[in-house]
């Protein structure tokens, strides 16, 4: 098992180098000059432009800038934002807890609701339940997130007034030395009502962010389950008179889980894309919105640093998924 893990981790190294090149190159391929964008309509003289570009190191050859980036990286430094003039790593970790909290809750919702629906739909294949849930899943899968989020706000916050419109917690709660994980901070603060406030702020964005992964997971579970239910060993188990609950719950589900876990792993990457829109609508102070702002300002250090960190996280999750395969299916470990 240890060799399997080490092998997996070694494979990450070339991927990581590739990612540094993509992250560095991506924002520079986009047309646009951060110095010009800083000046806006007011503009600046060519001399001033050259002076600033020199100060920021943009006048040097690209390979040199790239090596600088790697050199900084080796020292655990992602550089300073061109806009706020603060270290990118600090900015990332100030915002990451918000995204993580939202992402974990959304994923939790997607799995806890998506998997049972998929299993039930597979067992009752062709029933009204199957058709209704899979039809709904198709709608969920094609849902325009921005519109969906706004619709939920108008319904639940505007008309029904059940939930707050946006933000992470009511403004009356304030945890100066918090961890950034609002649920945890609210719980630890001991203030009654803080946790309820944090949860009520979290519910709508989590539902919105969970929508697409939930639909994908439900459909994937259903098709994986159907495939497994048609296998010989399931037929044998049934023929032996094993209770249907055990056939489905233990024998079939375990094998059906492999493609489902793959899907869940892939959805983590998709979740980042969804977070960009969800965070913007719900004024959720996370990294999705930060990346969009940084890209539109051509804040090179923030964009390349942020992309790198996001890629690392997605890679890490996929590593965990790979390891999980090993747990579920011992054959994978020994291959």
């Amino acid at each position, binding site marked *: 098992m240890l060799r399997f893990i080490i092998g997996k981790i070694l494979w990450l190294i070339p991927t990581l180098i590739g990612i540094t090149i993509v992250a560095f190159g991506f924002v520079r391929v986009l047309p646009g000059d951060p110095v010009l964008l800083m000046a806006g*309509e*007011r503009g600046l003289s060519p001399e001033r432009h050259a002076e600033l570009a020199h100060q920021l190191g943009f006048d040097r050859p690209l390979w040199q800038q790239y090596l600088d980036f790697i050199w900084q990286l080796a020292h655990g430094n992602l550089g300073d934002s061109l806009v706020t003039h603060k270290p990118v790593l600090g900015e990332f970790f100030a915002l990451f807890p918000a995204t993580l909290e939202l992402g974990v809750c959304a994923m939790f919702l997607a799995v806890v609701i998506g998997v049972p629906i998929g299993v039930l739909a597979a067992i009752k294949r062709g029933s009204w339940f199957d058709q209704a849930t899979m039809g709904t899943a198709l709608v969920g899968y094609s849902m325009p997130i921005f519109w969906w989020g706004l619709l939920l706000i108008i319904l639940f916050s505007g008309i029904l007034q059940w939930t707050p419109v*946006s*933000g992470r917690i009511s403004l*009356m709660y*304030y945890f100066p030395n918090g961890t950034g994980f609002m649920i945890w901070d609210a719980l630890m603060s001991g*203030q009654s*009502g803080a946790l309820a*406030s944090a949860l009520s702020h979290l519910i709508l964005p989590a539902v919105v962010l969970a929508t697409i992964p939930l639909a994908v997971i439900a459909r994937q579970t259903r098709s994986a389950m159907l495939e497994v239910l048609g296998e010989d060993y399931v037929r044998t188990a049934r023929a032996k008179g094993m209770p249907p609950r055990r056939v489905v719950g233990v024998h079939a589900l375990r094998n059906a889980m492999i493609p489902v876990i793959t899907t869940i792993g892939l959805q983590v990457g998709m979740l980042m894309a969804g977070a960009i829109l969800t965070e913007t609508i719900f004024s959720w102070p996370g990294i999705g919105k930060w990346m969009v*702002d940084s890209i539109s300002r051509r804040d090179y250090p923030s964009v390349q640093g942020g992309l790198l960190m996001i890629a690392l996280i997605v890679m890490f999750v996929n590593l965990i998924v790979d390891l999980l395969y090993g747990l579920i299916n011992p054959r994978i470990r020994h291959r």
Partner: protein
Amino acid sequence: MTIRSMLLAGAAAVMMTAGGAGAKTLVYCSEASPEGFDPAPYTAGTTFDASSKPVYDQLVEFKPGTTEIEPGLAESWDVSDDGLTYTFNLRKGVKFHSVEGFTPSRDFNADDVIFSFDRQGNKDNPYYAYAPGVSYEYYAGMDMPTIIKSIEKVDDYTVKFTLSEPNAPFLADLAMDFASIMSKEYADKLAGEDRKADINNVPVGTGPFSFVAYQKDAVIRYKANPDYFKGKTPVDDLIFAITPDPAVRMQKLQAGECQIMPYPSPADIQALRDDSNIKVDEQPGLNVAYLAYNTTQAPFDKPEVRKALNMAINKDAIIDAVFQGAGQVAKNPIPPTMWSYNKDIKDDAYDPEQAKKMLDEAGVKDLEMNIWAMPVQRPYMPNARRTAELMQSDLAKVGVTANIVSYEWGEYLKKSKDPTRDGAVILGWTGDNGDPDNFLAVLLGCSAAESGANRAFWCDQKFDDLITKARQSSDQAERTKLYEQAQEVFKEQAPWDTIAHSTVFMPMSTKVSGYVMSPLGGHDFYGVDISE
């Protein structure tokens, strides 16, 4: 128990335990995160709203709701007869805020004034480049390095600015955000602790609110400064709830999660007006959107051709379709709220027939031109692409083929400055200091034609003489007359089609009182009260 009643119960419990009952809090749903809290290195209004407006003061300030100058940290000032020396008498007994780790040991004085300007102009000042990439673009952009020859401390409460040439808008420049007065004592302390960059994270000023905390992209907290020299503001706490989406800001305002918000979508104005708990203030913005012809290229070098094209474009249709009514047709390059605006100018009326005739007479046939449409939304222009499309179809009716071109925003700004560029460019401007010079010289002067900020590359000697003379005169009545004449020359020569001045809306709860919209576009909450 519904979620909402649970929340309310919880909230009530907290209010009691925290003893916060009775404290008045004003919540502002701001549109974006500030770039930092030091206003001088930045040019964005969002950053000023969060830094210079609540936290800082300037030597002179704009009287609320106007572009007139009133005393700020300077109680009074004298201008020498030659217009070259400005002597400011500073207010005594003004206290800087205390923040965690810093309590001022002295009152505001001349050293703070000198420091605040010196750091922006003097390369040897330790704060000239206190963090990588920090540069004082506004200071440079307003030409301060050339205008200011020297700044001297006469005594602790007197500062003398010497200019290199007479410059009437200078006083208004000093009321701008970049001219905010920082505490030298605080800056020295930060420098001593090797954390200069904190001047951009934890601001210390003399303003009506002191900074408490900023949670990135989420919330900024301020509390009222009890020692404010104009008197304590009525509320106790001011909170910015950062809410980027306009539809969500509106929902928050309607739900009572904030009491005031900027930049609603024009499409939502009616719904907001219909809400009995909300009132909507409005004001023409201090801005202009224009179409600048390249007057150095044929056939746009002929005023009659430019005028004919202007007459072919239906500006009323643009106001309806693009501004959705939240704007007015522009006839002058300066907005109507600005002093010296020439009301008597007659705009070239929309008349396609006449336009066609004029083009024929000028010998222009089968003209094919480019219209440049900005890729971004700006306060003066909600949708440049749509505007360009409307222009395109109008021009087609007079036999002119227009192609719409666009570039990434930074590229657009750069390429449109190239004097060999083709066609006409859609762009605009938002005023900085309320002085007409800030529009007419910056956008239409001869030196701006050289730098490219004058996108029409229009250098008219008569016009340039008028605005130069006006800049050097300190007699307001004379300046007004000169600027009025300059607007006449502008209209005759038509280097631009003046498109529109946008309208700015500010929806707020009916519980809010005392909010005054600034014609300069900033958001200032001093003096604002809220009823329970």
